[in-house]
C-alpha cells in the first residue's frame, strides 16, 4: 500500500457521491479550513459533483495568506540591514508587502534564501559567522513543532547568530473567531488533516460542545474528502454534532504528544495578527525564556507604516465572506504572474486555486 492511489479509486468515489446525494436533504454551508483541502476539492472537481444545496466555503488555512503586511514589511526592513541573511519558506518570497516583497529585495542584492526545512536555517547560521540569520517563521501546528526543534537545537549547539521572526498561527482560535462571526453561517467544518496529526481532537471540542456544529478531521485524497463530507452530512441530517476523525491512518485523539511538547517547550500562546481576521486571542505564540533571546523583536529596526491595496479582497476571501470572483482585481490585474494579494501567491491560496481550476 502506498497510501495515495488507493484513495483515488473512481468506483468508490462514485458510490460515495451517490450516498451523499441520497442522505443530504437540507441546504448546508461547510467550510474547509485548510488550503490543501481547497486545492484537492478544486483539482478533483468535488464542488461540481456535490448537490447544489451543499456549499463549500474556503477558509483561512493558508499560512502565507494570513501573514499580515506588518510582518512582511518587518522582514523586508531586516533584509536591508548590514550583514543580515533572511531565510524563509518559498511562498513568502513573492508575497507583496506594503511597498516591496522579499523577491524584489533579493533582486536588489539582499541576502534572502529559501529553505525547505527549519533545519536548513541552522546550517545557514553555522556557515554565516559574522552575520545575523533571521528565519521568517510562518506556519500552523503542522510546522510549529519543526520550528521549535530548530530553536531547541540552536540553543543546544550554542548557535548565537540565528534569530526568528515569528509569524506562526494556531488554528483552533481562528475557528472560534469564524464561529463567532455574524457574517458567516457555518454548518460544519472539514478540519485540517495534517494540523490535526499534531493537535488530535481535544482542541476542537468547543466546535461541537459549545457551538453545536459537527467537525470532521479529513485527509486530502479525493476519497478522503468525499468521506469527510459524507460524515459531516450524516451528522447534520441526524442532528448530531461531534468531532470525528476520517483521516484515521495518521490522526489519533491524542495527536502527537512529542510534537506538542516541543511547541510548548519553546512557545506560549499569545494574541495572533491574521490578515483578514485581525487580532485573535491565543491564536499565535510568543517565545518562552530562554528562547526569547532569539526573537527579532529585540532588534532596533525601523519599519514602514503598513498598508494594503485598497481593492484587494484577500481579507474577505480568507474569512469565506467573499469569493475571488467578486474581486475586481481577480484575473484582470491580479494573477499568479503579478499577484496583488497573498491569496494569489501561494499555490494553496484560494485566489490561486480559483485561477487554476475555476
Amino acid at each position, binding site marked *: *500500500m*502506498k*497510501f*495515495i492511489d*488507493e*484513495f483515488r479509486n473512481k*468506483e*468508490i*468515489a*462514485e*458510490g*460515495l457521491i*451517490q*450516498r451523499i446525494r*441520497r442522505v443530504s436533504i437540507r441546504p448546508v454551508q461547510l467550510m474547509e479550513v*485548510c*488550503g*490543501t483541502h481547497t486545492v484537492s476539492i478544486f483539482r478533483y472537481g468535488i464542488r461540481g459533483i456535490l448537490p447544489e444545496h451543499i456549499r463549500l466555503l474556503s477558509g483561512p*488555512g*493558508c*499560512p*502565507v495568506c494570513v501573514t499580515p503586511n506588518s510582518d512582511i514589511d518587518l522582514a523586508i526592513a531586516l533584509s536591508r540591514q548590514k550583514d543580515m541573511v533572511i531565510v524563509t*519558506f518559498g*511562498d513568502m518570497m513573492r508575497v507583496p508587502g506594503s511597498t516591496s516583497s522579499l523577491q524584489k529585495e533579493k533582486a536588489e542584492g539582499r541576502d534572502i534564501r529559501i529553505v*525547505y*526545512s*527549519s*533545519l*536548513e536555517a541552522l546550517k545557514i547560521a553555522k556557515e554565516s559567522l559574522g552575520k545575523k540569520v533571521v528565519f521568517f517563521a*510562518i*506556519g*500552523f501546528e*503542522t*510546522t510549529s*513543532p*519543526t520550528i521549535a*526543534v530548530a530553536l531547541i537545537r540552536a540553543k543546544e549547539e550554542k548557535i548565537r547568530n540565528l534569530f526568528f521572526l515569528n509569524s506562526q498561527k494556531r488554528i483552533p482560535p481562528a475557528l472560534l473567531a469564524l464561529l463567532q462571526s455574524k457574517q458567516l453561517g457555518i454548518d460544519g467544518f472539514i478540519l*485540517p*488533516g*495534517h*494540523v490535526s*496529526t*499534531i493537535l488530535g481532537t481535544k482542541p476542537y471540542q468547543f466546535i461541537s460542545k459549545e457551538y453545536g456544529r459537527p467537525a470532521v478531521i479529513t485527509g486530502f485524497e479525493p*476519497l478522503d474528502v468525499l*468521506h469527510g463530507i*459524507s460524515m459531516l452530512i450524516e451528522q447534520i441530517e441526524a442532528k448530531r454534532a461531534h468531532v470525528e476523525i*476520517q483521516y*484515521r*491512518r*495518521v*490522526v489519533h485523539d491524542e495527536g*502527537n504528544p*512529542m*510534537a506538542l511538547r*516541543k511547541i510548548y517547550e519553546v512557545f506560549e500562546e499569545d494574541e495572533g495578527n491574521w490578515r483578514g481576521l485581525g487580532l485573535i486571542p491565543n491564536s499565535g505564540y510568543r517565545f518562552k525564556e530562554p528562547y526569547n533571546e532569539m526573537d527579532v523583536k529585540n532588534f532596533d529596526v525601523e519599519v514602514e507604516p503598513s498598508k494594503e491595496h485598497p481593492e484587494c479582497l484577500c481579507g474577505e476571501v480568507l474569512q469565506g465572506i467573499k469569493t475571488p470572483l467578486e474581486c475586481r482585481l481577480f484575473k484582470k490585474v491580479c494573477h499568479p504572474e503579478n499577484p496583488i494579494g497573498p491569496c494569489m501567491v*501561494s499555490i*494553496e491560496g484560494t485566489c490561486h486555486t480559483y485561477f487554476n481550476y475555476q
Partner: protein
Amino acid sequence: MCLGIPGKVIEIEKNVAKVDVGGLLRDISLDLCPEVSVGEYVLIHTGFAIQKVDEEEAKETLDLLRKMAEAI
C-alpha cells in the same frame, strides 16, 4: 503549506531516517516521531516525520468506504 507526504523508512541512524518518497531517498528527521521502525511508513512535512502512517487503519478505512459505496 501543511503538505504531508507518506514515505517508507529504509534505514535509521540516530534520529535521522532514510525514507523512500516516490522512489527518491531522503534524509528525514525523527525528532518528532522517534518510535518508528524500518519498513514502516511515516508522514513527512518539511523534512520531519510528523506521524506514523497506520496501515491497518488505512485498510479499515478503505474497507469501510467500499462497503459504503456498495450499499448504494
